[in-house]
């Protein structure tokens, strides 16, 4: 790695984080922590603040109040060394549609300072199952193919913290199974995975910690039944309140 030594962390601590956009409060006093080898699910209806929380964790948005600590490091002090340890798949896929799959991956591998961007890109294409379409421009890809490519782009540099916003969007069943397997392997590698999803049936049994966000606040998720039943019960009790 040509950049300064990456920050090593085993835990993320989110303490009292609020985030305002003008007068609108997207996050309100959110606190939780997660450890290496955990998969954390952010659940909640549209507009609950899940994507904002992922942006804050990715250091792309600063909290209005509160703090996020990555082990002992803070985003302000660690800067680029911390970013080297974060991979982010957002809902928009952060790919250049005019470039081929290989060119996209090589570009981002280069930006991350990987030693051999060509080899890294080739390996990532194989993992995404896109070797045969490597030199096609991304514009012609289906949503599922783009999603697989974007996922590999986010994990190219083997980040300690992997953030996924709706990672199952557009994936067929076989790809979903592969992704679940990939998430399990990230957990086995003691990475920290935080994912925002509405695909409750797919992630049921996968999550080590499920957090329900509603109107920017963390709400308790009940303990009985399937994830979908617990989610429904929690949302219904929130509406009744």
């Amino acid at each position, binding site marked *: 790695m040509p950049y300064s030594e990456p920050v090593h962390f085993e835990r993320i601590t989110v303490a009292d984080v609020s985030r305002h956009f003008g007068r609108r409060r997207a996050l309100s006093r959110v606190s939780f922590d997660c450890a290496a080898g955990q998969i954390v699910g952010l659940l909640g209806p549209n507009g609950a603040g899940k994507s904002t929380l992922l*942006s804050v964790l*990715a250091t792309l948005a600063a909290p209005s109040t509160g703090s996020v600590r990555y082990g002992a490091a803070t985003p302000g002090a660690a800067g680029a060394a911390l970013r080297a340890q974060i991979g982010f798949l957002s809902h928009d896929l952060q790919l250049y*549609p005019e470039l081929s799959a290989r060119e996209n991956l090589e570009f981002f591998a280069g930006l991350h300072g990987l030693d051999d961007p060509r080899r890294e890109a080739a390996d990532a294409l194989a993992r995404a199952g896109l070797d045969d379409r490597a030199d096609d421009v991304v514009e012609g890809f289906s949503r599922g193919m783009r999603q697989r490519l974007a996922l590999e782009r986010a994990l190219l540099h083997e980040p300690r913290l992997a953030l996924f916003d709706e990672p199952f969007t557009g994936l067929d069943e076989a790809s979903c199974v592969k992704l679940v397997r990939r998430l399990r392997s990230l957990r086995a590698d003691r990475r920290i995975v935080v994912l925002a999803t509405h695909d409750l049936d797919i992630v049921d049994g996968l999550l080590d910690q499920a957090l329900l966000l509603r109107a920017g606040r963390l709400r308790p998720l009940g303990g009985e039944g399937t994830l979908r039943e617990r989610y429904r019960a929690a949302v219904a009790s929130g509406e009744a309140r």
Partner: protein
Amino acid sequence: MNEFLRVAWLVVRKDLRVESRSRELLFTTVFFAISCVLVFSFGFVRGGRAVEGAAAGILWIAVAFSGTLALGRAFERERHHDALRGLLLAPAARPAIYVGKLAGLLLLLAVVEAIVAVMVAFLFQAPLFRFPVRLFALLALGTIGFASVGTLFSAMLVRTRSRAVLLPVLLYPITIPVLIMGVSGTAVLIAPEPDLAMARLWIGLLFFFDAVFLTLALWTFEPVMTE
């Protein structure tokens, strides 16, 4: 420093690759600049003779207008599909991304200026290439000054809904001195009796402007890009 330049080069190469496939910026900017010069030539050339002193102004107006068009689109590729966040999350020095975007724009504007300068010299019968090194210095420094401020504003406004309106409103008040220096420097070069000492002064002032605004832009790019 090598790392900084490597990242800047990656961004330039990516932009050139995308542009070579879409040709969106090149065609619109060149077409706009040519139209601009042609329209002015109908207004300022009578009976085969151009109005005295018009050529310098028209050259710089074409550069400024087509440059604004290019600047407005500079970060569009990054805005679409949220690629900007992918760039910002890379563990690279963020000013290197700015320098890469700026260098890509400068290359594009260099192509536009080469075409526009030949057209202005031909249509307005202006001796633009009498002092080619000085003209090159004026155009290069003027374009760097204009584009360095414009690239920063374009990045600042990338998440703003009314960015197309706001960019010229913010850009022109700050870059007017660059345009005035460019026009004045070019005018003294193509005058019947060229004043080379004055041309040197304008080139020096442009250099000073560029140094100040490039430094400010490199310094402010990181905080500006944090949401």
